[in-house]
């Protein structure tokens, strides 16, 4: 009993820490990569024991500490209650979807089989969509509670944007669900462990290339970062819906955004890039396509899976950072047109074509 | 013995199709009507002959029940146990009527081609005539009283249309209207009779009625039996259609129509519909001796009154009109005293000679350029010899000169009054008086027209003989009028209805009847040819009586005073007082009450969504309460 409970706690803590750590590393990478792109050094001041290369530690530790300790400015005319809860909702709703993200295969310790997924849920995909859709409340309430018209404008923009892109995202997911024939993310990852023709890893990207693009674009829009950062576009709305936020609350909002980036990475990895799967690695070791097996210890296989998942997630996080610093911001009408007249029809077509192909070929992957 | 005979429907359909042709194609190509109109009726006549011959062929083969041809077309009305079919029957009675209607009708159609030659509404005229023939055939052939009533009303409609055929003249339109309205009175009575029949027997089918009629004699309604009441009501209908007292006033006015119409409708066929109907229902009337007595009296009185009026008329068609009324009175007298066969026999002979007379008079009028006043004719026998000779036959026939048709039929009726099943000797005497009068006024008409000096204006009127299309029918009818007495109509009918053969008329009565005819004609010859001044003197001497007769017993004035004026006054009253104050008041009152109520109730309609929702809630609570309690 107790062991089960402890295992649950460990699983939850692990995935959250994983996410948050990638957020932290992401913050560092963001600085460094943006500097690289803009041909400057970046984040080079904080040194520990004279070792300037410790910028990593700087962002990992010093930034949060500084941020959390900043004054929480209380503005008159705000709705105190909602002003406080809005960032909390944002952050929580960004974190909870990780519960169904599988970060590894079954871990076998003794006779205990531990599924490396915080909450094995039959309808995982729906759960993710539900939680993501609740994230919008953080933005809406934050802007409204601030009693500031730029903040409110940011909220309205944000809510409209999130609703719009959720649809494209959801429809892209329908394609994936059709292909795998399940809503359970762990089962989807298992399905991607197979090989097509004995040599090509059956990753989702091969079945749903269009779905991947749609989901990725939608996800980036969900995280409200450039080029989709209309809700906070500082050149127009000061800082959008968190104009009136400071200190820890601001940090939560900021972090929620970044967690969403990581979440998108995790989901993309899980849905389209094999999750924790490593090509040719079965539970008993590497199966080289030509024949022959390189035996690997089962525990090691599982750990390798977790590492693979982390690396893949990191890759997509970095990819999003690069995107952010590469692309200019959309205009609002362009944003809406892309969502409703671009992604939505394509997503619908994707669903129809996928369903038609499945019907033709008979059954899912 | 009933045999199916699908040809019967074509007797009715052909004239109906002719009507359709004439109202559609005929309007564009009127000349085709000259062929189609008479052709349709002629074809119907041919089929009628074929079917009647077939009927008579059956007669010999089967003893017992008399034969009958039947044609069921479709079930027309079915309400509960009651039903009425579109079905036709041809038996001894309808066979005679069908032959008369189609035969005489055909002759009159042919005659009309000449008579109406120059009329701008040539096709319309034939359309009406065809429609009339179709309706009359429905009436005659119907196997139930409802279908008979359709024909009954159909001929009434055609009569109205044809009387007012030249509707540009207001008098004609008024005459048509009068005929229509007077007929309505009779029709109402007729319909009441039908209602009672349906009520008490549940059927209008002639055959079924015959089987069930017996029950009607036992039921009393006030002072009379149900049979008597129904018969009187049906007879009421007959008085309208057949122009008997008190509803005969429309017929003389009906002479406003073209003369062939007068001949066809108002002499030969339609006016005998009442007689025909009563013959058809003889079994019913046999049950009601009291009604028969009334009928006999009405018939005799009508004959007498009309004959006296006819003496004093100067319009040649009016004389014939009253003559018709008078002769119809004979027929009802015959029905009333129970000699049904004789009555129908007189229908047939009357159709011959009255048709002949009307067509002859039409020929005279045609030749005189529309002149109708007897006082402005005279000496025409030199100008119109064909017309003269045929008219002579007709006059002798109607007067009852021995061995011509009218002699036989009239004699049988009068003899029946003395010797028939329900004898009324007094009425027989009246019959003889009327016979003298008939001979006299017909002689008067004939002599004033064809003898004496030419009283017309020679500068404007050039009498001429009519074309052959008109003379041909005259000749045919003259032959029929002369020899029609040889037809054994009475015998056939009596055999069919199962009446025992009447005894031969006593020889003395035959002598008397012949003598009376000659007395009447002789008197007329004396007064209008030998001593032309005599009538003037008589008229002056009996001035009051003369004017009374000339003014048609002032019946129109009487009706005007007791019916028309009070009716107008009532209408005036209704229009001035009742309609605006009471009817409108009630209507407006209802509207005001509604308006008042809605001005109160509309406060419920606030337009507020939530008030509407509240009423929702109340309803939901009520329903819910009901379900929870139960």
């Amino acid at each position, binding site marked *: 009993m107790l062991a089960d409970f402890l295992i649950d706690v460990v699983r939850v803590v692990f995935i959250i820490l994983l996410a948050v750590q990638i957020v932290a590393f992401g913050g560092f990478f963001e600085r460094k990569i943006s500097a690289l792109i803009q041909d400057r050094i970046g984040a080079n001041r904080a040194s520990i024991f004279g070792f300037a290369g410790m910028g990593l530690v700087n962002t990992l530790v010093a930034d949060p500490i500084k941020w959390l300790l900043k004054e929480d400015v209380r503005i008159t005319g705000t709705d105190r209650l*909602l002003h406080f809860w809005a960032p909390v909702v944002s952050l929580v709703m960004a974190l909870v979807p990780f519960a169904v993200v599988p970060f590894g295969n079954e871990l076998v310790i003794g006779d205990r089989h531990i599924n490396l997924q915080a909450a094995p849920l*039959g*309808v995982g995909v*729906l*759960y993710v*969509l*539900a*939680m993501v*859709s*609740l994230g*919008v*409340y953080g933005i*809406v*309430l934050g*802007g*409204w509670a601030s009693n500031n018209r730029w903040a*409110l404008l940011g*909220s*309205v923009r944000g*809510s*409209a944007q999130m*609703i719009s892109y*959720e649809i494209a995202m*959801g429809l892209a997911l329908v394609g994936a669900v059709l292909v795998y024939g399940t*809503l359970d993310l762990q089962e989807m990852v298992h399905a991607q462990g197979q090989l097509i023709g004995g040599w090509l890893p059956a990753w989702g990207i091969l079945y749903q290339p269009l779905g991947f693009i749609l989901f990725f674009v939608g996800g980036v829009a969900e995280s409200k970062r450039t080029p989709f950062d209309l809700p906070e576009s500082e050149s127009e709305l000061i800082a959008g819906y968190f104009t009136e936020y400071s200190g820890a609350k601001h940090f939560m909002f900021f972090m929620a955004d970044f967690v969403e980036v990581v979440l998108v990475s995790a989901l993309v990895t899980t849905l389209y890039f094999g999750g924790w799967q490593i090509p040719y690695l079965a539970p008993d070791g590497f199966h080289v396509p030509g024949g022959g097996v390189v035996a690997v210890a089962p525990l090691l296989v599982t750990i390798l899976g977790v590492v693979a998942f982390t690396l893949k997630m990191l890759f997509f996080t970095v990819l999003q950072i690069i995107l952010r610093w590469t692309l200019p911001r959309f205009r609002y009408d362009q944003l809406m047109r892309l969502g409703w007249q671009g992604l939505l029809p394509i997503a619908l077509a994707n669903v129809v074509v996928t369903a038609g192909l499945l019907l033709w070929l008979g059954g899912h992957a | 013995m009933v045999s199916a005979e699908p040809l019967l429907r074509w007797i009715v359909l052909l004239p109906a199709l002719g009507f359709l042709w004439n109202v559609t194609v005929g309007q564009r190509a009127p000349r085709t009507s000259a062929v189609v109109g008479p052709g349709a009726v002629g074809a119907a006549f041919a089929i009628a002959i074929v079917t009647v011959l077939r009927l008579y062929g059956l007669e010999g083969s089967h003893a017992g029940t008399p034969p009958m041809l039947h044609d069921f077309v479709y079930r027309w009305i079915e309400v509960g146990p009651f039903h009425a079919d579109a079905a036709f029957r041809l038996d001894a009675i309808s066979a005679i009527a069908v032959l008369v209607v189609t035969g005489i009708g055909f002759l009159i159609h042919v005659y009309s081609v000449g008579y109406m030659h120059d009329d701008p509404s040539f096709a319309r005229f034939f359309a009406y005539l065809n429609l009339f023939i179709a309706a009359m055939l429905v009436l005659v052939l119907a196997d139930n009283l409802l279908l008979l009533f359709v024909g009954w009303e159909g001929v009434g409609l055609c009569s109205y249309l044809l009387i007012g055929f030249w509707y540009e003249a207001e008098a004609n339109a008024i005459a048509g209207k009068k005929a229509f309205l007077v007929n309505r009175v009779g029709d109402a009575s007729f319909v009441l009779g039908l209602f009672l029949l349906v009520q008490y027997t549940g059927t209008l089918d002639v055959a079924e009625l015959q089987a069930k009629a017996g029950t009607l004699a036992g039921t009393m309604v006030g002072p009379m039996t149900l049979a008597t009441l129904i018969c009187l009501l049906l007879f009421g209908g007959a008085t309208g259609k057949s122009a008997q007292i008190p509803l005969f006033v429309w017929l003389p006015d009906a002479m406003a129509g073209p003369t062939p119409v007068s001949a066809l409708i108002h002499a030969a066929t339609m006016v005998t519909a009442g007689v025909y109907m009563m013959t058809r229902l003889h079994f019913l009337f046999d049950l009601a001796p009291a009604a028969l007595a009334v009928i006999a009296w009405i018939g005799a009185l009508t004959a007498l009154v009309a004959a006296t009026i006819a003496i004093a008329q100067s319009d040649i068609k009016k004389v014939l009109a009253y003559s018709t009324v008078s002769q119809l009175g004979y027929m009802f007298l015959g029905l009333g005293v129970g000699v049904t066969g004789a009555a129908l026999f007189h229908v047939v002979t009357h159709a011959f000679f009255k048709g002949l007379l009307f067509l002859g008079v039409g020929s005279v009028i045609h030749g005189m350029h529309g002149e109708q006043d007897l006082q402005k004719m005279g000496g025409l026998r030199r100008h119109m010899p064909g017309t003269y000779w045929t008219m002579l036959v007709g006059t002798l026939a109607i007067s009852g000169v021995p061995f011509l048709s009218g002699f036989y039929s009239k004699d049988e009726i009068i003899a029946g009054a003395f010797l028939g099943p329900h004898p009324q000797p007094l009425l027989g005497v009246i019959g003889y008086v009327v016979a003298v009068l008939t001979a006299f006024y017909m002689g008067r008409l004939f002599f004033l027209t064809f003898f004496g000096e030419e009283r017309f204006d020679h500068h404007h009127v050039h009498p001429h003989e009519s074309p052959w299309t008109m003379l041909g029918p005259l000749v045919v009818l003259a032959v029929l009028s002369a020899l029609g007495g040889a037809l054994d109509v009475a015998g056939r009918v009596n055999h069919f209805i199962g009446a025992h053969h009447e005894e031969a008329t006593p020889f003395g009565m035959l002598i008397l009847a012949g003598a009376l005819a000659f007395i009447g004609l002789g008197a007329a010859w004396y007064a209008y040819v030998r001593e032309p001044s005599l009538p003037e003197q008589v008229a002056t001497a009996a001035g009051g009586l003369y004017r009374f007769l000339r003014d048609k017993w002032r019946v129109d004035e009487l009706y005007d005073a007791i019916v028309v004026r009070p009716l107008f006054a009532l209408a005036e009253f209704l229009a001035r007082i009742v309609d605006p104050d009471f009817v409108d008041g009630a209507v407006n009152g209802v509207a005001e009450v509604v308006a008042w109520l809605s001005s109160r109730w509309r406060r419920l309609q606030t337009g507020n969504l*939530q*008030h509407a929702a*509240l009423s929702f*809630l*109340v309803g*939901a*609570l009520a329903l*819910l*309460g009901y*379900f*929870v309690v139960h």
Partner: protein
Amino acid sequence: MSAVLFLVIAALTVLGAFTVVVARSPVYSALGLVGTLFLIAVLFLSLDAQLLGFLQIIVYAGAIVVLFLFVIMLLNLQAELETLSAPGLVAAAALGGLALAGLVAFGVVRTPLGAPALADGFGNTVPVAELLFTTYLLPFELTSVLLLVAIIGAVVIGKKRLA
């Protein structure tokens, strides 16, 4: 779901519902509604209606109420001084609401309800989908038409000023 947990959730649900009706600010009403709907979704899960539970959140909390909030913000509706209708209407409403709830509760409590054992997969996606695409295919298609009509209607009505 244990009785105690149910009572807690039920109390919170009723609290949320009251917030919808009582709150002066439409935004708080909307938040009360979200709370209620979210908790109803939890109740759905406790009734083995997994699919519906998440659909409830996605459709209601994630879309419909967001739409409400969106409109509220678009119209910039503030807290009102006079939130209630005419007193008579309010009294009738309170009375009617009580009567309705009471009647329904009374009617319901009299009917004993068991919680029978369930077949495997009850409330999951597959059986619901099977019903939708077989027995209820026609209503399902009609619903899709309804949604299409609603989309067009909303776009047309909301697009520009009328008249």
